[in-house]
């Protein structure tokens, strides 16, 4: 075979590279930074900073409604945000009322509380509460905004809300200073904005998966969202502002190298595509 023919064959082989090789390269790019504990420095974007500032300006003793509307499928991206929010709110002595419109949400937010509350000396029922799950989507949002205890008569553990000390005097979402939502989709942050933010004049902010981020930008610009964390990068930026490196920053080195690998794949694929097409002419 001539040299030109060999080159042509190689280009063709490379443009149809075995997917197992691609998987192996992605695995190496994802795993190595995690194994060696690589850390990266992130530049903080305006949506993250404005959310951080909004949470940071909450006075001690105020209440935040933490809507954990996510499931294990989006856990790698959203759990670090949930952790960062709870860390920030506890450090500011803000009381947290957690609830979920996603059935798999309550155990996840409870795990965050169980991990973090002892470090800040916070007590269940006095500093934070988990109201559990309620089906009904937007109807529940409006209902809880008007009558919190009527919508959630009991907490996640079956304790009547009337017997929970921190809920004395908290009758609706009008009594909380802010809604912080960790959102994996529908119902989520978009619905909290549409149903609650403007209608009840309650500030809403939160975090979403990276793929949902672009959809939320109109709400940030209109001021209906006080801020937004998009994907693991958003969580990492928030941790950086909080000066508490956690799962978000730990995962960013891995995500960065996978991004670079994907970009290289796209570049190579297009290079081979053009070489192949030029040969075809």
């Amino acid at each position, binding site marked *: 075979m001539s040299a030109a023919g060999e080159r042509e064959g190689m280009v063709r082989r490379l443009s149809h590279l075995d997917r197992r090789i691609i998987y192996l390269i992605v695995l190496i790019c994802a795993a190595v930074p995690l194994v060696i504990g690589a850390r990266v420095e992130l530049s903080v974007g305006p949506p993250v900073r404005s959310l951080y500032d909004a949470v940071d300006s909450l006075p001690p003793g105020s209440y935040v409604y933490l809507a954990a509307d996510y499931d294990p499928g989006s856990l790698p991206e959203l759990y670090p945000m949930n952790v960062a929010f709870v860390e920030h709110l506890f450090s500011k002595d803000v009381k947290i009322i957690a609830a979920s419109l996603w059935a798999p949400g309550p155990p996840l937010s409870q795990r965050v509380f169980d991990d973090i509350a002892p470090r800040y000396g916070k007590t269940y029922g006095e500093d934070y509460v988990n109201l559990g799950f309620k089906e009904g989507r937007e109807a529940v949002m409006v209902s809880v905004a008007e009558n919190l205890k009527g919508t959630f008569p009991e907490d996640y553990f079956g304790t009547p809300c009337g017997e929970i000390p921190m809920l004395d005097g908290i009758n609706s979402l009008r009594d909380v200073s802010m809604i912080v939502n960790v959102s994996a989709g529908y119902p989520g942050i978009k619905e909290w904005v549409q149903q609650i933010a403007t209608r009840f004049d309650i500030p809403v902010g939160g975090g979403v998966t990276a793929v949902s981020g672009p959809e939320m930008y109109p709400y940030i610009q209109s001021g209906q969202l006080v801020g937004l964390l998009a994907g693991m990068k958003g969580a990492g930026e928030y941790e950086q502002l909080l000066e508490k490196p956690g799962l978000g920053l730990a995962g960013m080195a891995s995500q960065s190298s996978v*991004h670079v690998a994907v970009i290289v*794949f*796209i570049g190579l694929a297009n290079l081979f595509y053009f070489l192949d097409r030029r040969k075809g002419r």
Partner: protein
Amino acid sequence: MKTEVPVVIAFVAGMLMIVSLFSPHPVFAGPAAVMRNWAIVITAFAYVLGVANIARISAGTVRTRGRDWRYKVVLLASLGGMLGIGLAGGIQGGGLFDWSYMNVMVPMQSTMFSLLAFFIASAAYRAFRARSVEATLLLVTAVIVMLGRVPVGERLWSGLPAFTEWIMEVPNMAAKRGIMIGAALGAISTGLKMILGLERSYLGSDK
């Protein structure tokens, strides 16, 4: 009557919810709150319907040894198992139900989501080609945003994160806003047609 009564109910319910949005007067707010509670209860019953349906279909597949019947056995066993554990010991944190959820469901779902990285990398290599001007624009924008979202991009050019943010806040937002306004107008139009009885497909296909 079979048509008129549901249309009247839809009209009264729809108008009540719209008016209650603009007026907090108890005449509207009270009944609206009651109807929201009804909606919550009805939505919750959809779960019962869903579980009964999946159990019925899966049991039928197992009985006839249909396609993937072994997976259906696992599904029914898991469904029955979790249901039994939840009914017997409750679903609160710290119990067997919670343990099973945290140690089976959470790792499995996270694994499924994590596999996306591999599929996306493979798909990007195979399908993301600059075949036309539009595809090239999409490709270049995607590469810029991907690079701008990771620290490596900032190392290459310090202005890249800001440029990425501009892409998100200007061209992306213009398109998103257009889509959202269009979808909202469509939803308003469909809602009004249903409330006014002009759209009756929810009553059945022949109405």
